[in-house]
């Protein structure tokens, strides 16, 4: 992955103003460049350090807890960057053709192009979802959504809520809700307690992170909040909105009334742009996903494209900052500029340690592999097009399907508005089992432009604009 330093004249372009993108921009500015920084959101900070809208008054400590000082540091860096970079908030990168990115300025709904020679993708992650009966009901949200409701809008997804699934966010969000005065009826962890116990020894290598996790758990227990292990979601009940949740635990069914349910199974990377840019992907066992490959500096397989942060594999916010800085240093190196080798070494070592910790974390919050065996046929798999698990299982069997993209063509799973962000992973699990292959061999959904649906009623200034999926087309079918 040697990226030629040939005649780079354009400023580097960064997609994503989360911890990775902000640190990358800062590093480039320090070296005297004026990068282009593009983000769909109104303000910098990304997911973990998402800023509340103007007019909200809660202090950083209330919003980010233990992470308050890191959040404030990232926000300060973002503010300092505002007049040192070409900053494009409210701007979606929806495609790339040749050496130009296609942009949509979301607020003015106007199209633009952005030429690039060096491009850092720092696109972050979304929740990893496994469907269950009733998951489309109003009141059922992802864990991330539950947190965004609180952090970004000072709202709760109900007055009495249950959180379910697995991953570190599960306990963090339960804590944040309880602290905000919301009744947390239960936390349903799909992992057995023994998994946590076994993983704890290796997690001690990263004491601050481990201590935080234990602290949330202890806090919840001290307040008598119900925590169940090895608990697997069966159904969200309700007619027009959620009124309760059922789960299975060691062969027994249990039920609780609730108004809100947040669930998720850790995170998945946003890799669509890397795919559209023809970066090479490889299967990553730890993330149980196909990810764009990057070298120790963050260079992708494609000349001029660099990868940083959770968008190329889930490593968390601190690692995102380091990877962002590292990718920027690679950009500088490839422009023939001098860089601090000691700093590179230090960043790479920190990332290496984080990777080890991530492996332990995966042990504590294992992916529930039995999901694809146990999920009922009548569960809606694709919430965009309302395709069920049973329909997908039948197609896999009848047509002897082996590959995700053939499954997509036949079932429409992954073809809807979300482009498989919500259902793609679950569909892959079903395909692997139905075709007797590994998840790796079942393949991955290829990304398509636009990476998110484009509103119509706007005049594209980009030539040859031909959306393959837009809200407009669906509106015609209403």
């Amino acid at each position, binding site marked *: 992955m040697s990226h030629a330093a040939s005649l780079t004249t354009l400023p580097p372009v960064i997609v994503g103003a989360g911890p990775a993108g902000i640190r990358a921009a800062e590093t480039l500015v320090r070296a005297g460049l004026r990068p282009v920084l593009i983000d769909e959101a109104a303000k910098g900070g990304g997911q973990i350090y998402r800023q509340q809208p103007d007019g909200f008054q809660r202090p950083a400590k209330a919003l980010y807890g233990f992470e308050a000082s890191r959040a404030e540091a990232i926000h300060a860096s973002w503010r300092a960057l505002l007049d040192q970079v070409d900053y494009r908030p409210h701007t979606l990168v929806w495609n790339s053709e040749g050496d130009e990115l296609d942009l949509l300025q979301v607020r003015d709904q106007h199209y633009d192009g952005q030429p690039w020679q060096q491009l850092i993708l720092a696109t972050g992650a979304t929740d990893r979802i496994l469907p269950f009966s009733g998951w489309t009901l109003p009141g059922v949200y992802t864990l991330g959504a539950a947190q965004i409701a609180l952090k970004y809008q000072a*709202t709760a997804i109900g007055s009495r809520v249950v959180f379910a699934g697995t991953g570190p966010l599960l306990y963090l969000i339960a804590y944040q809700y309880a602290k905000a005065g919301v009744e947390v009826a239960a936390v349903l962890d799909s992992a057995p307690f023994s998994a946590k116990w076994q993983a704890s020894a290796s997690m001690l290598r990263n004491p601050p992170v481990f201590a935080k996790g234990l602290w949330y758990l202890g806090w919840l227990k001290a307040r008598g909040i119900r925590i169940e292990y090895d608990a697997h979601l069966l159904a969200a009940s309700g007619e027009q909105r959620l009124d309760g949740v059922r789960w299975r635990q060691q062969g027994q069914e249990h039920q609780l009334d609730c108004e809100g349910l947040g669930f998720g199974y850790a995170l998945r990377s946003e890799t669509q742009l890397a795919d559209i840019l023809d970066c090479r992907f490889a299967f990553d066992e730890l993330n149980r996903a196909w990810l764009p490959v990057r070298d120790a500096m963050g260079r992708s397989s494609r000349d001029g494209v660099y990868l940083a942060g959770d968008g190329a594999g889930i490593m968390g916010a601190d690692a995102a900052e380091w990877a962002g800085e590292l990718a920027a240093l690679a950009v500088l190196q490839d422009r023939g500029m001098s860089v601090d080798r000691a700093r590179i070494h230090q960043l790479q070592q920190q990332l290496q340690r984080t990777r080890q910790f991530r492996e332990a974390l995966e042990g504590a919050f294992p992916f529930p592999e039995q999901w694809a065996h146990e999920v009922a046929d009548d569960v809606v798999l694709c919430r965009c097009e309302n395709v069920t698990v049973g329909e997908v299982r039948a197609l896999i069997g009848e047509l002897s399907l082996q590959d995700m993209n053939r499954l997509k063509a036949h079932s429409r799973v992954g073809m809807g508005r979300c482009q498989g962000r919500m259902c793609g992973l679950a569909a892959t699990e079903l395909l692997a089992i139905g075709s007797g292959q590994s998840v790796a061999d079942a393949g991955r959904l290829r990304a398509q432009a636009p990476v998110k649906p484009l509103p119509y009623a706007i005049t594209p200034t980009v030539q040859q604009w031909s959306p393959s999926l837009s809200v407009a087309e669906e509106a015609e079918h209403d």
Partner: protein
Amino acid sequence: MSLIKRVAEAQRPAVTFHLNGQPCQALAGDTLLTAILSQQSYLRRNEFSGQPRAGFCLMGACQDCWIKDAQGRSLRACSTLVEAGMSVWTDTQPSTVQPQGAAS
């Protein structure tokens, strides 16, 4: 009845918008999702099942929160802030309001 509950930040100025033709109050800084789901329990209906939906990811990923304004424009409710005078529809608009032309 509302789906989501406000837990803080009630000091913000009120904003009046129209929901299905009726005037409603929101707070400055609310997303359309917050503004609507503090009035009623859904945002839209799925095109295939007709079942109510109220968003899912709140971060622009699931696309299950698109609604229409009075001009027929599509808006993603979780990532659009409410503005005074906005008029949005979660149910079918009266036929007197023509959506803007097709994408072609």
